[in-house]
């Protein structure tokens, strides 16, 4: 029988399942089943939509594989539980955290420690051949041998970090060990020809090894203090727009490429079976030939997706630096999909950049040109919304018409200057639809110098700081006329 489509009952059911397993104080007693249910709960807590049927799938799949092998176990769970690339990323993070903590907790409860065997390790550490260890680790990284890396991480810690000598900050210790191991991405000359270090190690592999080191150090710390550190939920920002200067442009690109593809097909699923679709007489007659001239099947005129004329106005001041990198690349993507589109950037003054976007295919070049030539900063470099609306109105008021759509990207922080809401109202009233995308969470709206409410009465304001929100907005934007209220 198919599971109920509604998520609520299933969620409740699994809660109950988790609850019933709880009285068994030690989770290990409840067996793997309870662990998996708990794991599912944790995934749900991180926003993965997980049905009971999916957990059941996982249960029925596990006996079919040799699941005592870590990678098989993990991939089996991933195939049954995580159903999109985004979910998979979250799954990986939660998986690592959850099973690491579960084993550690079990070890604590049963009093199994590394201490007994650890002392043996300690003695052994003096005999570890450092150079051989370096070579082995390099080889394991090059071969991506997960199991060997795990063991080597423990050896490396034994060799380089004497217990109790750690700095207390895991990251610092990890970097120190990595430096002592001389793991580098650039080619090293003074090693034998067949050594993988001769060609440099893959960056990804070194990162992987660092993660293992970190995990191992964390494990030792738990053992020393005999308690688990508080569980940390995944940072919300991990899933926010890739926007910070620290995050690379590549991830921005990934999101935008995806968006471009969606934009291309956007609105097309509304074609065809619309209730108000017009009958296409020609094609209906043609189809009726099949049935001897009786029009049994009606053919409809396809509903064309709405491709409105867009005016996009983007804030590029320092208060929204991180978001504007993203927004600019989104504008860049939009230019591919909307032919009738004009773009503006502003800080204190407004400047049209449509031509830049049309000329430059490459986003990096676009942002450079804008930074150099747009001339939107005047003296202070603080946003001046009042002045911007005035200038904008002058520039485009003759071209605004009821079928035009105006989109403003900005945080509506006026730095104490006049908001000029009445000018904005004029722009909004001349255009058909007006949207405001605010890169700040709704929580911060109208707080401090944010005056979003004085604009929001003239337009539809959306918070937009995750890709999901952005996509949602694009859906609203391209929805056919008929579906809008």
């Amino acid at each position: 029988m198919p599971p109920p489509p509604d998520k609520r009952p299933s969620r409740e059911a699994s809660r109950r399942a988790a609850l019933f397993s709880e009285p068994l104080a030690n989770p290990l007693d409840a067996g793997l089943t309870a662990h998996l249910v708990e794991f599912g709960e944790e995934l749900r807590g991180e926003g993965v939509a997980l049905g009971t049927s999916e957990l059941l799938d996982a249960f029925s799949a596990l006996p079919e594989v040799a699941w005592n092998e870590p990678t098989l176990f993990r991939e089996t769970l991933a195939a049954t539980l995580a159903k999109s690339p985004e979910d998979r990323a979250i799954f990986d993070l939660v998986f690592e955290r959850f099973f690491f903590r579960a084993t550690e907790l079990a070890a604590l409860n049963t009093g199994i420690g590394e201490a007994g065997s650890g002392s043996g390790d300690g003695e052994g550490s003096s005999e570890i051949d450092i150079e051989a260890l370096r070579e082995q680790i390099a080889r394991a990284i090059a071969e991506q041998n997960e199991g060997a890396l795990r063991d080597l991480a423990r050896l490396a810690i034994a060799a380089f970090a004497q217990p109790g000598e750690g700095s207390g900050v895991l990251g610092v210790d990890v970097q120190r060990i990595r430096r002592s191991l001389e793991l580098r991405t650039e080619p090293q000359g003074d090693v034998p020809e067949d050594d993988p270090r001769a060609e440099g190690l893959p960056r990804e592999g070194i990162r992987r090894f660092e993660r293992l080191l970190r995990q191992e150090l964390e494990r030792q710390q738990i053992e020393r203090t005999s308690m688990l550190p508080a569980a940390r939920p995944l940072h919300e920002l991990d899933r926010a727009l890739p926007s910070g200067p620290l995050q690379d442009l590549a991830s921005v690109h990934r999101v935008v490429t995806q968006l471009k593809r969606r934009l291309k097909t956007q609105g097309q699923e509304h074609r065809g079976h619309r209730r108000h679709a017009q009958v296409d007489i020609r094609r209906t007659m043609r189809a009726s030939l099949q049935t001897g001239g009786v029009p049994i099947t009606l053919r409809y005129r396809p509903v064309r997706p709405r491709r409105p004329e867009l005016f996009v106005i983007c804030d590029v001041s320092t208060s929204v630096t991180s978001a504007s990198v993203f927004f600019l690349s989104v504008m860049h993507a939009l230019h591919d999909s909307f032919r009738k589109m004009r773009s503006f950037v502003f800080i204190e003054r407004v400047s049209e950049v449509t031509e830049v976007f049309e000329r430059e295919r490459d986003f990096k070049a676009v942002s450079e040109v804008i930074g150099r030539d747009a001339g939107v900063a005047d003296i202070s470099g603080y946003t001046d919304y009042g002045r911007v609306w005035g200038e904008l109105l002058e520039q485009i008021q003759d071209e605004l018409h009821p079928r035009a759509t105006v989109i403003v990207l900005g945080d509506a922080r006026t730095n104490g200057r006049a908001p000029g809401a009445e000018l904005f109202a004029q722009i909004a009233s001349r255009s058909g639809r007006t949207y405001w995308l605010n890169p700040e969470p709704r929580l911060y709206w109208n707080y401090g110098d944010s005056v979003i409410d004085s604009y929001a009465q003239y337009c539809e304001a959306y918070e937009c700081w995750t890709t999901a929100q952005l996509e949602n907005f694009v859906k609203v934007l391209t929805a056919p006329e008929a579906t809008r209220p």
Partner: protein
Amino acid sequence: MSTTPERPDEISAGLIEVGYLPDAATSLVAFLANKLGKPILVEGPAGVGKTQLAKSLAETLGRELVRLQCYEGLDEAKALYEWNYRKQLLRIQAEAQDTGWQQVQDDIFGEDFLLERPLMTAISSADPVVLLIDEIDKTDQEFEAMLLELLSDFQISIPELGRIEASTTPLVLLTSNNSRELTEALKRRCLYLWIDYPSLEHELEIVRLHAPELDEKIARRLVEVVAMVRDLDLKKPPSIAESIDWARALLLLGATDIDTKTFNETMSIIVKHRTDIDIVAERVGVKLDSNGDGSGAAAS
């Protein structure tokens, strides 16, 4: 002949035999799907071999492949079944005047007048088949909803005939380019497999499998260049099939190295957009040149 592999390795070996090099996750999911009788939802960028996976699975399992190519506006009549109107009309016209309506009705809504479409074929086949529902993201949500009955229970309801149940469980693969979010209900019924562009080493193996005569050094260079091209922001990044085509083309041309000249001449095999060609020529061509000089200097 149709066998049921008992371990993921067996599927993997079988796939390699028919020329498809799967990674660990792919063979595991294929194995599970076969074992549990669940559909697989395969997602990934265009050209990573999603469709090919279905073909190869059919080949290695010794099953027939039934393919349903999805497109906008695909409806039940084209996917499931359709009444053969013309035949029905002829039947009615051929009928003598005095036959009762009831009898005619019973007659013309029989299986004789049913046109089987791919989904119906897959369900009613006597031998188990591999059913490929290609590019499911191109259809609308109504069609997805219609698939639900088929995917979870392997049955189709025809109002005039009743329910048709599958006598054998087909192995179902749905592919999607992720150009729209599929419904939760559909995802919940499937195992999920994400296929990405292969790593350098993996692609090298694939190219060497399909063009074994190509020199190892050129093959390595080729996959490096392809990876470089994929990194650019192109309208259509090169697929695996295209790197294989390119390898074969280089073989035919008897190229000994990929330098700027060979690259510019053969680039159209992997890049197929006017604007893309400009970008690639500008970026990769220059890099090849400097690399070529470097190796040339080293050789001399």
